[in-house]
């Protein structure tokens, strides 16, 4: 517990709660109305998932630049299958999900086989998938798919908690359990934390990398399903804006770029905070420029101010050298 109190998660939780209360007051309580809450949560589902998809690869010390492209591609595939080829909803969603997972797997395999930097591999797959997505939908917006799916996308538990948000939370929960409590999950984190040590302990870093990328693809598959279900249609712009938020959530949530950290809760909380910023924008009718400016200024400011306490620890750790930290990279 004491550790939790000092953790990034705790800080985020406090910031999130303060922010939310502020918003509720500013909206004169309107934000607590069922509809407002539902809208707030509705658009959290996908950001949470893309943050998690990135977090998983960050956990093995890799990057996935193709998050948006995988999601967009899978969404386009599902949309086109349903609208143009009359494939049934469950089958189309399954195919889309599998495609995303397979692309993730492919990313992992390519990184392992070619030993090219994951940055470049995912950049290349991103480029390819953007092409495929365009080829699938062109400039259209595909929306001729069964109403049932859209109904699910808009449905909410008690009229407040959207089902797609529940799905995202379930995925987050499963991922947390997987990373904290299963052998493959632990092995994945071990590979990220100290690949050499992991290898010496009989863990295959290659397998961890592949597992991480595949998981990332699969999570993006779910994100794509939720997007198809909840958006007015699918076009080539889907996924176009996922890359930066996918990094922002886990990194604000406390993930290390060098790997080894599993911050499911942090990622989810960070996604909440980012979402509150959107809500604030609508609430105060802010110009997006001001919103960006304020977000940037606040993050920079809090980073500068928040260091007063951490600074000393920071300095000590530079000096004290935890003997266990070994540089990342995949062996």
């Amino acid at each position, binding site marked *: 517990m004491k550790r939790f109190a000092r953790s990034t998660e705790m800080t985020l939780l406090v910031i999130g709660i303060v922010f939310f209360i502020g918003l509720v007051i500013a909206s004169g309580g309107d934000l607590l109305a069922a509809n407002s809450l539902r809208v707030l949560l509705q658009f959290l589902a996908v950001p949470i998932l893309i943050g998690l998809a990135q977090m998983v690869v960050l956990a093995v010390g890799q990057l996935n630049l193709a998050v948006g492209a995988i999601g967009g591609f899978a969404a386009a595939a599902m949309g086109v299958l349903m609208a143009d080829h009359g494939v049934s909803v469950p089958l189309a969603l399954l195919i889309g999900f599998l495609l995303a997972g397979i692309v993730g797997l492919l990313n992992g395999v390519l990184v392992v086989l070619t030993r090219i930097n994951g940055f470049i591999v995912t950049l290349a*797959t991103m480029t390819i998938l953007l092409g495929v997505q365009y080829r699938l939908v062109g400039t259209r917006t595909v929306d001729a798919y069964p109403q049932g799916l859209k109904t699910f996308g808009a449905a909410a538990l008690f009229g407040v908690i959207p089902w797609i948000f529940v799905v995202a939370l379930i995925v987050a929960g499963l991922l947390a359990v997987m990373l904290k409590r299963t052998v493959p999950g632990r092995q994945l984190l071990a590979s990220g934390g100290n690949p050499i040590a992991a290898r010496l302990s009989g863990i295959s870093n290659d397998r961890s990398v592949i597992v991480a990328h595949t998981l990332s693809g699969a999570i993006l598959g779910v994100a794509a399903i939720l997007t198809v279900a909840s958006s007015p249609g699918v076009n080539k712009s889907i996924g176009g804006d996922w890359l930066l938020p996918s990094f922002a959530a886990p990194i604000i949530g406390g993930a290390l770029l060098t790997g080894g950290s599993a911050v499911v809760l942090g990622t989810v909380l960070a996604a909440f905070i980012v979402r509150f910023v959107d809500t604030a924008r609508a609430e105060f009718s802010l110009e997006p420029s001001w919103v960006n400016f304020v977000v940037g200024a606040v993050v920079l400011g809090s980073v500068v101010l928040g260091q007063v306490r951490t600074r000393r620890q920071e300095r000590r750790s530079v000096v004290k050298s935890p003997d266990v930290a070994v540089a990342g990279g995949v062996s």
Partner: protein
Amino acid sequence: MTAPVSETATQALQEDAPIEKPPRGAPWWANQRIGLLVLVVLLGVLFGILRPAFYNQQLVIFPLLRDIAMFTVVGLAQLCVLSIGHMNLAVGRMAAFSMMLTGISYDLFHLTLYSGLLVGLVAGTAIGALAGWVIARTGVNSFVVTLALDFLLLGLIPLVYTGLTDNAAFVTKPPGMRELRNYSLADVCVGNVCGSPAVPQLALFAVVAMAVVGWIYARTRLGRELLMTGSSVKAAELSGIPTARRVITAHAMSGCLAALAGFMLAVSTGSIKATIGEEFMLPSFLGPILGGTLLAGGFVSIWGTLIGTALTSVIRKGLDLLGVGLESLNIYLGLILLVALSTDRVRTVLSERQEVRRQ
């Protein structure tokens, strides 16, 4: 200048110490940079055969070189922070910010072309230094700090543009800007000897940037200390390198180069506008990393950045000329990149094998 070590100690330490077997240098063809260069040349020849227009000096080579020059500078801007193991996600926005000030200096203060550029470079250096200062002071990951800075600038820049201009762009062109866009080395003559009309004058900026950055990293204390900081901050700190100051320097250099790249973009497209640099981020990483610069820090390659940038630009240009439509363009682009790099990788592995076999 010898160390205070006596003959006896020296002897004790040296006695029949067999030199560890010298690692034989890898064959030249295993060198990553050379591999990439060969690839660029091969692709150039291939595209030239398929479309002779590829060698059109005015319409293909000239803009191609202008692009390569600009993105090389963008790559160098990222390379400076990669050298210490950091990232600069605000590289494009720093360019936009600097050019905004350059634009103001042209529009409101009627500065000349180069004094305006100077204003931009100073602004870029300052904003980069700010990022570096925050990172050094707080120890927060450069990714987070530059991302936050990116947001801040993303907000600030449109506010200024919409406040100061009618069209969200500074359209005042100081004398010389138009010329710089179109002039090639053919317009630079020494006596009767003129340069090639295929080489844009703008490319000279990249040459200067490469020379300066290359000189810093290869020849000066600063460059070495940056690389050492990138290799291991702890060891650098304990070896008396002022790591905090180096972090600031690296980011300041990055900002300065971003500003230069922004200027090159502004000159080559025509006006100074808020969206300058939006497309910089991915290429800024792609060039250096393809060229062998390490994401983790400690090793940079200036030539590699140029060649890496050239590779992507040449592929794109070739596909353009082949008339590949948007349905296939990105697919081919990604595939060629993957295949090219995989073969590059296979080559390295083969050379290592061969070397082991030789022993």
